[in-house]
């Protein structure tokens, strides 16, 4: 028996998972669960053992009597696990047999979330387990209506969305992951900014160093916040371009609003770094959207990465060289 209302622990756990704190170990035990008091005719809903997926589903089912068959996806959500094959035909067939489902229900039907179809082959499951697969709505919140209406398809239940709310929910975890892998840039570029022809190292740190760190933060913020939020309005289809445009705007704002005291060469280098950072992180965001094709990602990476690489090397050389040349 599983509860269908949220406890304080579920809220706290979900918040932590969104921040990326317990994300890799937020799982439930795979197997068969009962929601309400399911009988031998009750539907069997299949889901992943990521606790956010499991919770979203069970909290969408108050008052219903259904079986929940939880597959072992190593704590990964349905769609991502289906892409990697852990939410797949083999695991589904194995879990049906291991749970003794055929002794508990008289029918031979499984309701698999539509996004699980990337890993599950309906005709193979039928052949290997005797159970037929019916693809249910994408969103757990639609399941109740869907079941009440005899499991018929409805307009809007089959298409993925990427709303402002859905995009903004991704920001905290992106921040966590990016800062974890890129934190070293801050001390490195801060200290590099102090290099100059004389001993005024500290004073350069307080001016150039501080502006460099600000530029890094603005570049990261632009790529991780502006790109997801402004996604439909940023021009172009390529995420590298969207990121570069967001970076150009926020970099120019920094240079015009702040009294940086930097010369033209230094300002240009700083602007280029903001653009590159935002462009790179924008491109990185293709991994989190529900509409970017791997072939498209490869297409833009082949074109954007050489440009981003050359621009960042050039900008860094100018930034470090400026005090030496202009002194």
């Amino acid at each position, binding site marked *: 028996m599983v509860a269908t209302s949220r406890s304080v622990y579920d809220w706290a756990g979900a918040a932590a998972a969104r921040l990326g704190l317990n994300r890799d170990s937020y799982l439930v035990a795979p197997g068969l669960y009962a929601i309400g008091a399911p009988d031998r005719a009750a539907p069997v809903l299949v889901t992943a053992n990521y606790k956010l997926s499991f919770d979203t589903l069970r909290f969408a089912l108050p008052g219903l009597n259904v079986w929940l068959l939880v597959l072992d996806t190593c704590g990964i959500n349905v769609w991502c696990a289906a892409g990697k094959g852990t939410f797949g035909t083999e695991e589904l067939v194995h879990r049906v047999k291991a749970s003794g489902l055929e002794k508990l229900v008289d029918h031979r039907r499984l309701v698999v979330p539509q*996004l699980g*179809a990337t890993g599950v082959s309906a005709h193979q499951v039928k052949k290997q387990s005797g159970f037929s697969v019916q693809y249910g709505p994408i969103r757990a919140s639609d399941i109740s209506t869907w079941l009440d209406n005899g499991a018929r398809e409805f307009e809007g239940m089959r*298409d993925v969305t990427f709303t402002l709310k859905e995009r903004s929910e991704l920001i905290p975890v992106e921040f966590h992951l990016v800062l974890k892998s890129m934190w070293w840039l801050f001390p490195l570029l801060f200290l590099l900014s102090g290099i100059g022809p004389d001993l005024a190292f500290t004073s350069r740190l307080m001016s150039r160093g501080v502006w460099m760190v600000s530029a890094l933060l603005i570049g990261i913020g632009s790529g991780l916040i502006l790109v997801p939020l402004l996604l439909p309005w940023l021009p172009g289809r390529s995420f590298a371009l969207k990121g570069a445009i967001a970076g150009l705007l926020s970099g120019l704002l920094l240079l015009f609003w702040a009294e940086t005291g930097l010369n033209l060469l230094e300002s240009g280098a700083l602007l280029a770094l903001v653009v590159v950072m935002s462009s790179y992180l924008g491109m990185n965001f293709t991994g989190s959207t529900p509409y970017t*094709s791997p*072939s498209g990602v490869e297409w833009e990476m082949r074109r954007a990465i050489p440009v981003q690489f050359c621009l960042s090397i050039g900008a860094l050389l100018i930034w470090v060289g400026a005090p030496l040349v202009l002194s």
Partner: protein
Amino acid sequence: MKEFRYIHGVSSLCLDQSLCIGCKMCSRVCPQAVFSHQGGKAAIQDHDGCMECGACGVNCPVGAVSVNPGVG
């Protein structure tokens, strides 16, 4: 997806209409409404909408649909 469009002309989605038995499984699993059906056969109506998730290929019982996105 209608409100979001990605790079055009790159998806590896292929449909062999001569094999299609018109079971509509491809439309049922597609999250981007890429397929339509005419005269008892599937047709690709929005090739550039394809995100190469591969669900159609995996669930086509006669192997009429294929998606091979390379490295991914």
